[in-house]
């Protein structure tokens, strides 16, 4: 009986399965019938329409590339623009033997070994059916010669293209950046952000600097043209056209002349300078020296030149201002002094007797002052004017690392400033937690002492130093540093201002602020460490010198500039703002291996301030290198 039921169940189940199968069969048949009907509609009913589209007039849809926006400085000086030129391009899939082809081409137009190297590199990065330039900027004569021989070269074409040009060469290389050919990585990023369609036809994309970070504004909207093409695929006439929308123009906050003055002021030194308007965060000059010629990247850089740039000991590809991290040295002292006053660890009249070194209670280690024998009686004012190290060793010890970390953090140390170009380094504002996670070591009291004079674990970028100086100059009000002042709409020519972005405020007591600021003005006056650089200035300016060690000194050893090879010499630093009572410019200068802040960095700042405030062209300044009595710090 049981078996019968099971058998019947099986029968029933099988029946049910067959019904399901039949339903599926019906559905499949129906879906195929729909496909068949669609084919009928496309191929029989609408045949004429599609036939016209494909066969009689082969319509191709061609992207029309928009003009890239122009970048200029605040006074309208052009920093990046476009020019039109003819290029000779090869489509590899149609060309056959490339080596033979290029050899044959070189008999008609000049093709240098550099062109060949560049072509080979571009070839690797591009797809087979894309045309790749073998020569750019053809002369009229070369165009004519090629036109006469064109039948010999299938797959080779002359195209008119727009090229990017950077008229100031290396001057703005680290801030304006450059564009380069779109590579696989760029393509994936465009794909991901849904912009791939807008880049059909575009060969170049911003790679670094403003060119990269404002890519969306600069690129514009690609137009579409429906063209009728003949059997050879050449355009016969245009059927309809949606014109492209040019990219928007950018007006930067930079002052080209100021940038030039700053760049030149470095002479043969390497280094960085960032100048900021403390009232808005507008970046007025952004120098990283040496730079490189951004024009090399536009047509695709060849491997040899690239290797030379990357391999150079001067590191021209490194953006020192943006991600070079240096110990701030004594330029940290104004901020430490403020911390001491604000947190009640120092009064203005508290003074120490400086023996030339500092020791922790019960400790044997001596932290030496830069001046052998010390500075004598030193109060807060004098500690800044003569840059007394001993004063700040003690102050740092009294404040403790947590208080230092908290206070300096408000001036932007240890954080990216948020400048509107990519690649910024954040520096290090050390704390016990940081040391634990970085080195798996606990914080020692001695670690705090060096931080007091901007040595030890603390490092900052020149941009961060300039930002902190700007906050100080603006009495604690912070604005995010930015490079773009206006965006000009390419259609309406209207300028859209990018308003200053407040970035918080550091609450400071006016009397404390005034004390520190007064001392900083005296730094540039007779008796101060920057007296030489301040001599004869018709305006009052505040400054602070600094020196950052490149090599560690053994205990008991004294730094001797003459004994140390050039690359291991100390970095020179200077921060400044002016005019002292109502600052319109704040800056930080870093001179790599410059020796002393007062000797090399401060004179550069003076030239920049003179130009910005007085419009005075720089004059050759006597540098302090030959001066035996120049303060080191």
């Amino acid at each position, binding site marked *: 009986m049981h078996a019968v039921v099971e058998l019947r169940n099986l029968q029933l*189940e099988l029946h*049910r*399965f*067959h019904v*399901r*199968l039949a339903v*599926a*069969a019906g559905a*499949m*048949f129906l*879906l*195929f019938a*729909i*496909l*068949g009907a*669609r*084919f*009928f509609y*496309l*191929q*029989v009913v*609408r*045949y004429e*329409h*599609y*036939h016209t*589209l*494909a*066969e009689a007039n*082969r319509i*191709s*849809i061609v*992207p029309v590339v928009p003009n890239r926006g122009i970048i200029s400085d605040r006074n309208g000086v052009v920093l990046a623009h476009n020019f039109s030129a003819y290029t000779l391009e090869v489509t590899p899939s149609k060309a056959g033997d490339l080596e033979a082809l290029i050899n044959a081409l070189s008999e008609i137009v000049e093709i240098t070994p550099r062109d060949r190297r560049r072509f080979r590199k571009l070839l690797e990065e591009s797809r087979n*059916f894309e045309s790749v330039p073998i020569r750019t900027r053809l002369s009229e004569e070369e165009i004519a010669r090629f036109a006469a021989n064109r039948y010999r070269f299938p797959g080779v074409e002359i195209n008119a293209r727009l090229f990017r040009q950077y008229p100031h060469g290396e001057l703005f290389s680290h801030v304006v950046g450059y564009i380069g050919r779109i590579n696989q990585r760029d393509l*994936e990023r465009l*794909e*991901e*952000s*849904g912009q*791939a*369609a*807008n880049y*059909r*036809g575009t060969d170049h994309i911003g790679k670094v600097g403003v060119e990269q970070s404002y890519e969306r504004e600069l690129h514009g909207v*690609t137009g*579409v043209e429906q063209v009728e093409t003949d059997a050879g*695929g050449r355009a016969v006439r245009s059927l309809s056209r949606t014109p492209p929308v040019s990219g928007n123009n950018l007006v930067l906050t930079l002052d080209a002349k100021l940038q030039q003055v700053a760049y030149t002021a470095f002479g043969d030194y390497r280094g960085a300078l960032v100048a900021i308007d403390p009232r808005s965060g507008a970046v007025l000059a952004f120098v990283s020296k040496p730079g490189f010629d951004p024009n090399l990247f536009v047509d695709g850089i060849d491997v040899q030149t690239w290797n030379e740039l990357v391999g150079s000991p001067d590191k021209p590809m490194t953006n020192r201002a943006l991600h070079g991290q240096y110990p701030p040295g004594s330029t940290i002292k104004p901020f430490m002094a403020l911390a001491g006053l604000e947190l009640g660890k120092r009064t203005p009249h508290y003074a120490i007797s400086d023996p030339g070194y500092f020791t922790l209670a019960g400790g044997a280690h001596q932290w030496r002052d830069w001046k052998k024998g010390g500075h004598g009686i030193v109060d807060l004012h004098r500690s800044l004017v003569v840059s007394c190290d001993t004063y700040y060793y003690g102050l740092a010890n009294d404040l403790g690392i947590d208080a230092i970390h908290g206070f300096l953090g408000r001036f932007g140390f240890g954080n990216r400033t948020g400048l509107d170009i990519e690649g910024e380094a954040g520096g290090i504002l050390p704390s016990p937690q940081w040391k634990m996670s970085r080195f798996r070591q606990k914080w020692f009291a001695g670690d705090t002492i060096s931080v007091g004079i901007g040595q030890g674990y603390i490092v900052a970028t020149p941009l961060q130093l300039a930002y902190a100086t700007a906050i100080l100059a603006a009495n604690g009000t912070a604005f995010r540093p930015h490079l773009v002042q206006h965006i000009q709409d390419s259609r309406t020519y209207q300028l859209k201002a990018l308003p200053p972005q407040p970035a918080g405020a550091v609450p400071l007591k006016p009397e404390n602020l005034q004390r520190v600021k007064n001392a900083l003005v005296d730094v540039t006056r007779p008796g101060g460490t920057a007296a030489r650089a301040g001599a004869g200035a018709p305006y009052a300016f505040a400054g602070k010198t600094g020196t950052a060690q490149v090599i560690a000194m053994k205990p008991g050893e004294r730094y001797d500039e003459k004994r140390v090879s050039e690359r291991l010499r100390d970095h020179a630093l200077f921060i400044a703002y002016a005019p002292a009572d109502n600052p319109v410019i704040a800056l930080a200068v870093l001179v790599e291996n410059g020796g002393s802040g007062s000797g090399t960095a401060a004179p550069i700042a003076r030239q920049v301030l003179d130009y910005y405030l007085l419009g005075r062209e720089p004059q050759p300044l006597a540098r302090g290198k030959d001066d035996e009595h120049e303060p080191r710090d």
Partner: protein
Amino acid sequence: MSPAIRNLGERLTRHLDGTLCGLVLALMALGLFVLFSASNASFARVSAQLVNMLVALALMWAFANIPPHYLSRLALPLFLLGVGLLVAVAAFGEVVNGARRWLDLGVVRIQPSELMKIAVPLALAWYFDRYEANLRLGNYLVAAVMLAVPVALIVRQPDLGTALLIAASGFFVLYLAGLSWQLIAGLAIAGLASLPLAWSALHEYQRQRILTLIDPMQDPLGAGYHTLQSTIAVGSGGLTGKGWLNGTQSHLDFIPERTTDFIFAVYSEEFGFLGNLILLALFLLVVARAMMITARAPTLFTRLLAGALTLIFFAYAFVNMGMVAGLLPVVGVPLPLISYGGTAMVSICIGFGILMSIATHKKLVQT
């Protein structure tokens, strides 16, 4: 012919299904012809594809000779291996074109989602067969979870097209196993209701592909380009086509992916409406033969497996042709047995091998 050779021949072909073999070979031959045209007469491409086909046929033969009950033993380990590999992909897969689909094993790079195309229906068929005596709602729930895990992993890669097809293959098994009509209707309604939610979860490029279907001219250079150009190719083929090697759309580079996912556009342009009908008929015959095998399959396991494999084959063909003809959004699904590419060729032929095994081992069991 000597009896020994005839005997050997008989033993070698014992487990092959003549009708199915004939149809598969006919489609493959057609595929080579189209590929020759689509690749601009590239013998290299054609011979590479020929190698793919020979490998696939060898595997088909091998699988035809594996009795179904061995397959059912393989089902669970294969499924678990597949899921494990998918997890590995999510953890340390390689990113190619913005999606994490490949796993680099040092020697070879594999795409585990391909394996799941066979492993999922196999595992589900095995599962239902195991609980054949008394299927309850709980069993369907377990099956749904077995299906959801790999599908979710593949969606995350992201590879929506493959995920949907694998989800469909699992659904086919559930459907054939007797998932109640009310539940199917309920799922359909729930699916429709959650469409807005699904829309917001899609990637921007996926949304574009769907919007494009409605109005290709909205983005003629971007997402709409494939559909626009392939529709022109199909439509301009007309009744009888432009003739082999004469497709203008194809040969002027208008059709992207024209040897792989869009090869049907080339075929359609060159062979026209009549050619399309012939191809549809060939696919229908394959499906019909596979349905017959399914109907006669001896056990629940073989019935479910055969039915699911049949429906999957159909789904591939339908989705691909629908996509080329502008009926469905652009998803990366090859046209079975025609598109260039080894992986799909192999997985389709393994499916046929299993079908043949089911068809031929039944007799042995009965006698």
